[in-house]
C-alpha cells in the first residue's frame, strides 16, 4: 500500500514537472525539469524491480541528456552574443 502511495506521489510529481518543462518560459528550467522527470522515472523503475533500467535512466536519461542540452543551450546563447 505504501508503495502505491509513493508511486502515486512520484507520478504526480513527474507529471507536474513535465508540465513545467513544457510550459515554463525559461528554457533552463524546462531542461532541468525534464531531467527531473527522468530522475524520478528511475526511482519508479526501482519500485518496479528494474534496477538495471533505473541505473541507465539515471546515468543517461537524466544525466547525459541534460548535460548535452545545457551544452547546446550554452552554445546557442554564445552565438546570440556574437550576433549582437
Amino acid at each position, binding site marked *: 500500500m505504501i*508503495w*502505491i502511495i509513493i*508511486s*502515486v506521489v*512520484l*507520478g504526480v510529481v*513527474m*507529471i507536474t514537472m*513535465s*508540465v513545467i*518543462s*513544457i510550459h515554463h518560459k525559461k*528554457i533552463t528550467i*524546462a*531542461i532541468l525539469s*525534464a531531467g527531473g*522527470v*527522468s530522475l524520478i*522515472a528511475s526511482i*519508479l*523503475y526501482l*519500485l*518496479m*524491480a*528494474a*534496477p*538495471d*533500467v533505473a541505473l*541507465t*535512466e539515471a546515468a*543517461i*536519461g537524466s544525466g*547525459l*541528456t541534460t548535460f*548535452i*542540452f545545457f551544452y*547546446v*543551450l550554452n*552554445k*546557442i546563447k554564445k*552565438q*546570440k552574443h556574437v*550576433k549582437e
Partner: protein
Amino acid sequence: MQNIGIEQISLAVGFILLLLGIWGMISQKNILKIIVSFTIFETGINVILVAIGYIRNKTAPILDSPELQTDTAEKIVDPLPQALVLTSIVIGLGVTALLLVYALKMYKQKKTLLINDYKDTKW
C-alpha cells in the same frame, strides 16, 4: 483499491507523459522546447514498457541469492521489457543528441529558435 498496483499507476503516468510530450511537440514553438517535449515523450514510453514487464510482489531478475535460483519463473519480474527499455533509452539519447545538434546548426543559419521560421521547403 486492492486491484490497483504500481504497474497500473506507472502505466497511467507513462501514458500521460507520452501525451504531454506530444502536446509539447505540437504546441511549443521553440525548437529546444520541442526537443525537451520529445525527451518527455520518450520517458513516457519507457515507463510504459517497464510497467508492462512488472509483476506484483516479484523481485528484480537478478539471481544473486541462492533462493532465487530455483523456480525462478515464479519469483522474478519479466526481464525482457527491461532489456528493451535499455535499448530504447540509448536510442533516445542518440536521437536527442542528434536533434540538439540539428537545433544548434539551425540556429547558426538563421539565428532563431522558432520552428515557424524554418519554412524554406514547402508546397
